[in-house]
């Protein structure tokens, strides 16, 4: 009995929290920031769901945007086709459409999951990438969804339903956390570790992989269904490979397999680079300085990790490298500004957004391949220790 009371309380807390975020954002934040709050929730959902496939089950999928897109288009198409001839109000219709998006995307997940049964990591990667491209090319040519010029999803939400986005994000986190807390979930981790040994221990590897794909793509599809009604407009260029890589970067940065890591990375990477869009002029001197400093930082961290064995030095390696790189960037950019070609050239912030993701991936692999949190989680793990 007390279980159900606690369960209801936590659900109420979650829903209440979502409405609190909603209220707070609308009262206090500029539209631009409100948008980031919504996008953060969507990216959390995407990162957590990719983490389920990629980090927890170890199936290296890099085409997650495809499921996002399938969900968005399915929901958009259903709304365009049926909304007018049905009695539901928009507040009920949109969650329903998210389910439609989720179900459709999970069918797509099933289709992609099937090759995963026969393919090892890198092959699977390219198949998922290819699947994403196929979806994009097909939508680009399909008249019913507006082909390359996109389609309007009418009606869109009148004010952003921030709470709904966050409820989706929290649900995806809760589902992954629940899974990892039970014996079922350990089977997923086992498949990641060693497929042959898992199947010899009775784990149904096939079913586990397909379940991961179906579940992961369902959440991405629901995020897509939300997006369709949030933006009110869908166009294939919203779902290019870049989006897949951004989600992948979040998972890798957070630490493959760590749900909390994915969440933190999703929040960081979905908001911070957005502020760059507004910066009109970034000087080339600064960029070159940053590039050199990052390389120096990487070299320093790698040197310490390989040749220095004093624990105190090793402990300050990461913070030292980060602070050092920042200082070096500032100093170098002043110095480089004396070179006229660099001082006069500049670029706008939106163009370095994706460069940041790329640099994150490469630098991370070189200095900390396990990601920010490795396999660790914050604040849970009763199963994962021997004494409760």
């Amino acid at each position, binding site marked *: 009995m007390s279980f159900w009371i606690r369960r209801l309380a936590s659900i109420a807390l979650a829903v209440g929290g979502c409405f609190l975020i909603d209220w707070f954002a609308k009262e206090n934040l500029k539209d631009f920031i409100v948008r980031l709050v919504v996008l953060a929730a969507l990216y959390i959902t995407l990162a957590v769901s990719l983490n389920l496939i990629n980090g927890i089950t170890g199936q290296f999928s890099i085409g997650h945007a495809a499921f996002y897109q399938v969900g968005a288009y399915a929901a958009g198409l259903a709304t365009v086709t049926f909304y007018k001839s049905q009695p539901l109000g928009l507040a009920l219709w949109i969650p329903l459409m998210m389910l439609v998006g989720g179900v459709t995307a999970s069918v797509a997940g099933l289709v992609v999951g099937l*090759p995963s049964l026969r393919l090892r990591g890198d092959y699977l990667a390219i*198949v998922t990438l290819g699947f994403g491209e196929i979806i994009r090319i097909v939508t680009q040519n399909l008249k019913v969804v507006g082909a390359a010029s996109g389609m309007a999803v009418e009606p869109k939400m009148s004010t952003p339903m921030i709470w709904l986005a966050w409820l989706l994000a929290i649900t995806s986190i809760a589902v992954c956390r629940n899974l990892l807390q039970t014996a079922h979930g350990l089977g997923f981790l086992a498949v990641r570790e060693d497929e042959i040994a898992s199947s010899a221990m009775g784990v149904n590897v096939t079913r586990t992989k397909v379940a991961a794909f179906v579940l992961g793509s369902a959440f991405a599809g629901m995020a897509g269904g939300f997006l369709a009604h949030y933006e009110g407009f869908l166009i294939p260029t919203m779902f290019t490979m870049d989006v897949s890589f951004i989600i992948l970067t979040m998972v890798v940065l957070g630490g493959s397999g760590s749900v909390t890591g994915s969440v933190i990375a999703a929040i960081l990477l979905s908001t911070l680079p957005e502020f760059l869009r507004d910066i009109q002029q970034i000087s*080339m001197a600064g960029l070159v300085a940053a590039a050199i400093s990052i390389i120096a930082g990487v070299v320093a961290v790698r040197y310490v990790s390989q040749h220095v064995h004093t624990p105190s030095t090793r402990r300050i390696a990461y913070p030292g490298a980060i602070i050092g790189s920042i200082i070096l960037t500032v100093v170098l950019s002043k110095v480089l500004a004396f070179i006229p070609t660099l001082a006069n050239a500049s670029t706008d912030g939106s163009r370095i957004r994706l460069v940041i993701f*790329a640099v994150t*991936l490469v630098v991370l*692999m070189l200095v900390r391949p396990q990601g920010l949190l490795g396999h660790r989680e914050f604040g849970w793990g009763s199963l994962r220790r021997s004494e409760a």
Partner: protein
Amino acid sequence: MAVDHLFAAGVNFGSLPAQVVNGILIGSLYALIALGYTMVYGVLRLINFAHGEVYMLGAYTALFVSWLIYGNQVAPVHTFWWALPTMLLASMTVSALVGVILERFAYRPLRNEPRIASLITAIGLSLLLQFGGQLFLPVAPPPNINAKVNPYSDSMTFYLKPPAKPLADKASSLEAEATATEKAYNEALSGVPSGEEPGPTVTALRNNYFEARNAYEEAKGAAANSGVSVTIPKGQLIMFVVTMFLMAILRHLVMFTKQGRAMRAVSHDFDSASLMGINVNSTVTFTFILGSALAGAGAMMSATFISGVKIDTFYGLLPGVKAFVAAVLGGIGNIPGAVLGGLLMGVAESLVIWVGWGDYKDAVAFLILIGVLMFRPGGLLGSAKVEKV
């Protein structure tokens, strides 16, 4: 069903050979790039996602060299004999250098980490060069080589089945008439003093000429359609010949040199090869040099010889992906397989265009890939390895 569609789309079976030849020409380019993927995968078991960007940088190198040589003028034909090989060598050198740098500073440090780390790095490098390149390379408006350096843009036509005799005769008689009327019209026109309106006789002559020319064009078209011909742009033919030549060199290097033997040994078994005293690092470097140089060559040629091609930092994205598919199709790690796979990919793509599904051309690669992996994971010439337990 499918056949119905063919007719509905007005597919012309006479154009099939032309499309196949076209496919082979493009396919040879895919093959050239695919060799880089396959060799690197062979020695390191790594999909070098950044290979497409090595290719892209090769195209930019060719562009810069063409600027250096010709500045803003249109290149005179008599300089091509030395300018084109210079561009080719420059592209190959720069691409090889980029490949070696990537290997040395990004892949080698990760060689003992799980393979997924190198794969993620490769993806990251690929993105970095695509988007970072946007900051430093000329992208807008997209530059191109072949507007200024425009070698051999005309094409040659071969007849597999000559046009029907009566139609051809009719066309040639009409051609004579068209020439005659044109001459008459031009003479009359030159008689008109400048600044004056041509009189009615001249107008009549002009109408005559236009009529005759239209009739000739029509008859020529009909005659051409009645035969089966293959038209090859000369530039692409050169590209094909050079590609075959480079592949022959590669084969020699891989089969008969010490480094080539080492490469095959490493490819067969990395750990044993290193235990047997093979210098694995230099072998891997050698592999990257070969693969990247080939990509550079392919990039220079595609950017120069295929008319209308524009260069940007995503220049290597689709060719790279297709070449990768070609490598998998042939059996990744297998050198003849990459060539076969490349040619098949090119032909498959042409056939899709021929059938009238040109919009979906780029999806074909992935469909082939998924098909191969599902039904013959080892590729056509490779063999799927069973993991020893």
